[in-house]
């Protein structure tokens, strides 16, 4: 399992209800089901990936996350997860509000755009950065949002959404190993992972993950 998913899994309490938006083949849900006894549901737009997840015996909806999240009742889940998808979301504020409507906590992970390699590339070559985490060219990229960890914190403040937990990690996109970055995360981390709480409610904040 991807390292960022391992971090997310470590945040999930046992016997909870989890919604994984963009669950791919369901490896996180499958892991959580086995290790934490969670009752999980996934949403995945790719037929092959969704099919593979359902074939694993997971409860998964083949569809678009914006449409599918609308149908869940309020507070249907304890956690709503959006891993490595935020950078492809057209309207992040609406989606995150929806996530916090259907779940009490939401967990978001995304590639940190201001990682030092991206900065160097931009500075020295004068071109849009292409990295292992963001491997596309400007014209074929599904990643329509560039998200520095620092900006994501500001975004949460603007939404009045408390950050309950956050951790920055350095890993390769498909890598199953990585490490937590505590020193200058906005410069040195390849991914940021945040747990968000209900708007207007004070969450206890810690940075260990």
């Amino acid at each position, binding site marked *: 399992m991807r390292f960022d998913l391992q971090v997310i899994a470590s945040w999930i309490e046992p016997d909870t*209800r989890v919604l994984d938006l963009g669950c791919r083949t369901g490896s996180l849900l499958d892991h959580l089901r086995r290790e934490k006894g969670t*009752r999980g*549901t996934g949403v995945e737009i790719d*037929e092959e990936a*969704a*099919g*593979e997840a*359902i*074939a*694993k*015996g*997971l*409860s*998964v*909806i*083949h*569809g678009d996350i914006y449409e*599918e999240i609308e*149908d*869940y*009742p309020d507070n*249907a889940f304890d956690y709503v997860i959006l891993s490595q998808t935020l950078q492809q979301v057209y309207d992040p504020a609406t989606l995150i509000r929806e996530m916090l409507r259907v779940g009490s906590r939401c967990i978001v992970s995304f590639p940190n755009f201001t990682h030092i390699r991206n900065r160097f590339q931009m500075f020295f070559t004068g071109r849009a950065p292409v990295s292992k985490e963001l491997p596309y060219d400007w014209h074929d990229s599904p990643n329509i949002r560039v998200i520095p960890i620092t900006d994501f914190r500001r975004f949460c403040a603007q939404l009045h959404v408390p950050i309950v937990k956050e951790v920055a990690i350095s890993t390769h996109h498909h890598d199953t190993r990585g490490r937590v970055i505590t020193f200058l995360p906005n410069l040195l981390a390849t991914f940021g992972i945040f747990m968000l709480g209900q708007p207007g409610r004070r969450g206890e904040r810690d940075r260990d993950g």
Partner: protein
Amino acid sequence: MSEYTDDLDTGPSVGLVEKQYHTFGSVAEPMALESGRSLGPVTLAYETCGTLNASRDNAILVCHALTGDSHVAGRYQEDDPKPGWWDIMVGPGKPLDTDRYFIICTNVIGGCMGSTGPASPDPATVPPDPATVPPDLATVPPDLATALTGARPYGMRFPVVTIGDMVRCQRRLVDHLGIDRLLAVIGGSVGGMQVLEWSVRYPERVVAALPLATTTKHSAQAIAFNEVARQAIMADPAWMGGDYYATGRPEHGLAVARMVGHITYLSDESMRHKFDRRLQDRGELSFDFEADFQVESYLRYQGNKFVSRFDANSFLYLTKAADYFNLENQHGGGSLVAAFARAKCRYLVISFTSDWLYPTYQSKAMVKAMKKNGLDVSFCEIEAPWGHDAFLLPNQRLEALICGFLDRVGGICATGGGNAL
């Protein structure tokens, strides 16, 4: 229903199966139908494969589509040319694994393949009227046949039945077999309607439901095609108001009805792939009204083949039942969300991209209503070019989805887990 499977190698077989009958009710104590009329006695033809386990919790009910029958898998005799209609799905090691599950398939009432339908003898016409030709006694079990010798077929005296009536009859059979809860109910098309009906009408008795390529209500377009098919039968002079059993069946009308049906089971792409504009057994256009094109020849062939196995009146009743089906009106006061409020089972909903008879938006509507009720639902729209027929064709994705889903609900059933999210 698909005719593609004619030449398929369907893999390991359940072997020999036997058509069985269960009769309940009587003239004195008939079954009340949703139309307000009644029917009795009622016979269901059914077949089973696999073994019911000691705890009686491994039973899966398979619901056939419009013109299907109880012969879901295996053969009646070793030298039968074709196995049952879903032999690719039902058998040892197949998704509906007869080594693990006890598979039940019944012919619906209103049908003509052993269950009570318009071709069955009408008990109201006993004692025998010597002026009439006896009905097809093959449609009643032997013990009942004797009692009804000389009775005339119902014809249009047969009451209009609904999907709800069909399911209520199936429940009688499931009771008779001593099964409290079905592990799963599965079916495509009109069979999928029965699956949905089961899950909402008898929520305590279904652990999992798999409605495939189906809808909670026919669109105007689907009703329109059915009406054209019915009119083709009723416009055939041989139909005689449905009283044709002594005079000769409305073969042409029924064949045309089947041709209409076949068009709706295919897709633009599958027809282009299968026939395009290729000519049949000729190099040039005939400039007459022979079957020039392969597609014409195919439809004529399918129509004629159907006539030999199906009763025209049954076709009228079954299409009517499908048109009347409206889950939200019947069980939710017009609201699909309210209809599924009764449900407790887990769902696997499947649609196919090229199915324009029951398009994906109809499956999505039911998924939406299930989610709003907090039900455990999986959904997949399978990419397939073959139109509505796709659910009957070999499809690895479909098989994997059904396998994985049944594995999970089988495990839940064994551990007695809860129902919803």
